[in-house]
């Protein structure tokens, strides 16, 4: 009796463990099953590299190239802004505030602030972006483009707003992961560098950060994943037209394309949206693969 109970327990736990595998397989299967057909119906080159998006026209065009491009450019730009800010914040948290009680208090407050930033729902970022950032961008837009014949005014709902919102949203990820990998760097390396006459900053930038680089890279890649997958916040601030990803253009990302058109799309249009989802999913899977590699590398370095 006891034995039966034991083995039942074991199998129940096994099934619980396998749920994750089944989920990933099911998601992958569905993304491909639903996303692939449009590639054949429209033609992969026309779909992926077409630049005209007119899904509801009498003669519909389904080119998602600008959408892919916007996601890539938006993500990269936000990472370019967010990573340096995040990394320097991590340096402040770890190495510049650890030598005095006041410093440690400041560091604790800052860590809590970062945690809270991470906890704020993305719709709130979107709401504030919509109310604060967009009017600001509109001013800039008017400043640059008044009198321009070709510029399509966006009221500030543009690429630039989206990049800023994304940069802010990836900050906590970058800060937390960089800070913990910087903390993990052995104190003896810092001592060695200081004993050679290096200053504190030289030590941080020439020894500590290089030694923590695989952890920092993990943070950067996670940030990329987060930016690439963010949907609601940037849907609220980036405008709603498929365009080349220029700073003052209203743009659509892979994610926002889904959010804004899925509710009413039908037929081939809907199929193409699934393909958009598939493209996003493939990006994310590649990022996960890179992450696994990085982690393995990190583990090896620790041995």
């Amino acid at each position: 009796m006891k034995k039966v109970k034991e083995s039942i327990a074991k199998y129940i736990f096994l099934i619980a463990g396998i749920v994750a595998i089944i989920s990933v397989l099911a998601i992958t299967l569905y993304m491909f099953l639903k996303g692939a057909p449009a590639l054949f119906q429209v033609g992969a080159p026309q779909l992926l590299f077409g630049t005209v998006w007119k899904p509801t026209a009498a003669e519909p065009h389904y080119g998602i190239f600008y959408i892919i491009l916007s996601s890539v450019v938006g993500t990269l730009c936000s990472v370019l802004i967010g990573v340096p800010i995040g990394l320097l914040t991590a340096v402040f948290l770890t190495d510049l505030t650890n030598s005095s009680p006041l410093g440690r208090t400041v560091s604790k407050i800052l860590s809590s602030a970062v945690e809270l930033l991470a906890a704020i729902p993305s719709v709130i970022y979107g709401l504030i972006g919509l109310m604060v950032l967009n009017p600001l961008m509109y001013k800039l837009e008017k400043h640059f483009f008044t009198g321009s014949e070709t510029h399509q005014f966006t009221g500030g709902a543009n690429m630039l707003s989206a990049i800023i919102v994304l940069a802010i949203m990836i900050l906590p990820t970058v800060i937390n992961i960089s800070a913990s990998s910087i903390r993990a760097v052995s104190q003896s390396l810092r001592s060695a560098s200081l004993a050679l006459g290096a200053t504190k900053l030289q030590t941080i930038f020439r020894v500590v950060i290089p030694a923590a680089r695989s952890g920092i890279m993990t943070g950067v890649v996670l940030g990329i994943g987060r930016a690439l997958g963010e949907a609601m916040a940037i849907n609220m601030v980036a405008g709603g037209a498929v365009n080349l990803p220029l700073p003052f253009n209203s743009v659509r990302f892979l994610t926002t394309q889904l959010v804004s058109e899925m509710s009413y799309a039908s037929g081939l249009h809907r199929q193409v949206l699934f393909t958009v989802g598939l493209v996003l999913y493939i990006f994310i899977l590649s990022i996960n693969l890179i992450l696994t590699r990085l982690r393995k590398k990190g583990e090896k370095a620790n041995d």
Partner: protein
Amino acid sequence: MTKKKCRVSELFLYGAIYLCAAVSIVLLAYIIIYVLQKGLKSITPTFLTTVSSARKGTVGIAGNIVNTILIILVTMLFATPIGIGAAIYLNEYAKPGKLVSAIEFATETLSGIPSIIFGLFGMMFFGETLGLGYSILTGSLTLILMVLPLITRNTQEALKTVPDGYRNGAIGLGAGKWYMIRTILIPSAMPGIITGVILAIGRIVGESAALLFTAGSAKLLPKSFLGIFDKIFQSGGTLTIQLYLSATSEGDFDSAFGIAVVLLVIVFAINLITKKLTRRFDVTRNSN
């Protein structure tokens, strides 16, 4: 040796670091102040306890609050046991091998998938293939997949901190493994498990993209207590979804900021609780 070098570039770098460190604090302070300033005036008893009524001309989010709670309950009802079970399997039963690395890889992958993809999958699979349509159940089933890694990982961390002596002690007394897990492991790992659960609740409260196409946006209250069970099979928008709709299609920014205040209060409270818990957790860990 006695001439102090003046390092201009270092001063510049220090300035940059302090500036960057200030960014997070300033941002947080700004967000809180701005949201409170714009939204506090919307927080009235009517707003919190009624459903919007065009006839009376009132706006209320009670329906969304109930929907949010329902989604949390249904999601956690399934996600908690599965997540804990998976963690127990990984830490206590499985021997290192292909299956373990597959489960761990799958858990990693799940935690990296953006919520919009979960939403898409939930809509296609639970909504269409299983025919559950736009409903709280569809939303919850979708969210289970999303919060599963969070619970599994926190439980695993907690299990790791339970000393092997406890396990050997119980087994040595002739207790079965399942008995040992039930009476020794799970209680010892409780703070970690609860932390995971609360973090998952926080994630659900803030979630929007995964729910837009799964749980829908209805804001009506269930008609009776038993109506709650019907409600699970009906469309229901959470607070975040209502915020999104208020700020975009409905153009009702007062409500949007009102909801933002409510959301901020909830997520900050959750943050505070998990912090307290982790601290207590650390204490027990250190005393071992």
